[in-house]
């Protein structure tokens, strides 16, 4: 495992982040903004950092993003 990867995993994001519960509550809005090319990270502050730090929420995010994109949002 690379140096930066292991440090990232252990130390997590160095920015304010949502909790897992807040992430789930905002995930649908965040994904639709992202897929529509809107400034999702500005509209949902703390989401990007949480997705950097939480592997499970990041997987949920990628799945919803890909499913919505596939539906031709």
């Amino acid at each position, binding site marked *: 495992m*690379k140096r930066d990867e292991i440090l*990232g995993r252990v*130390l997590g994001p160095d920015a304010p982040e949502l909790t897992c519960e807040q992430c789930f509550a905002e995930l649908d809005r965040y994904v639709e903004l992202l897929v529509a090319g809107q400034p999702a990270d500005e509209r949902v502050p703390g989401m*990007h950092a949480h997705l950097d730090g939480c592997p499970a929420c990041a*997987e949920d995010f990628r*799945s919803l993003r890909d499913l919505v994109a596939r539906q031709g949002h």
Partner: protein
Amino acid sequence: MATALMTTPTQRHADSPARDWIERLRAGGPEEATAVAELHALLLKAARFEIGRRGAELRHLRGGGGEDLAQQAADDALLAVLGKLDDFRGESRFTTWAYKFALLEAAVKVRRRAWQQREVPLEDEAWRRLADAGSAAGRRAEDAELFAALREEIEAGLGPRQREVLVAVALNDVPIDVLAARLETTRGALYKNLHDARRKLRAALAARGFEIGGEEER
């Protein structure tokens, strides 16, 4: 007071298809039954999508069972969606909002099934990873010091639960849902442990004079 402020969040934001879904799911009688069946079909589609993309993990499962998992995930997601209709704020399409419940249920079920017969790795495995990261060929001497300090702080500076969660999730790739089930708690509670542990480690390393960079790629 403005009318918009007196309406429910769903009424305030929802587009027409979303309102149709909510109204039909609360209509009672055959209309509601039809809407529930349609919703279940959507959730099943999402669950199959999630399980399909996790094919590699499922190959480890005895006897397959992907379709059974998809059905269970859709059933559980249906209950969750119907129980949380009041939480729908109309800030996305209703289908996108509903999909996330099915994806979550499916993902959690796959992770737990894949780890059913597996032990959570011991801390030794994590220490080996840290040592490897600190001693790789060509590494600067500061990196070896950094990773040695990191191990010391993990061992001595964290509480038992913080250390357990950090080692399992961040170093040993144990899915947080799997660990949550074994410790009889929730993903959110464990992530709070992980978050607190990370903050403590950052502060401890900074106090020792190490400079740590910012975010990495998602």
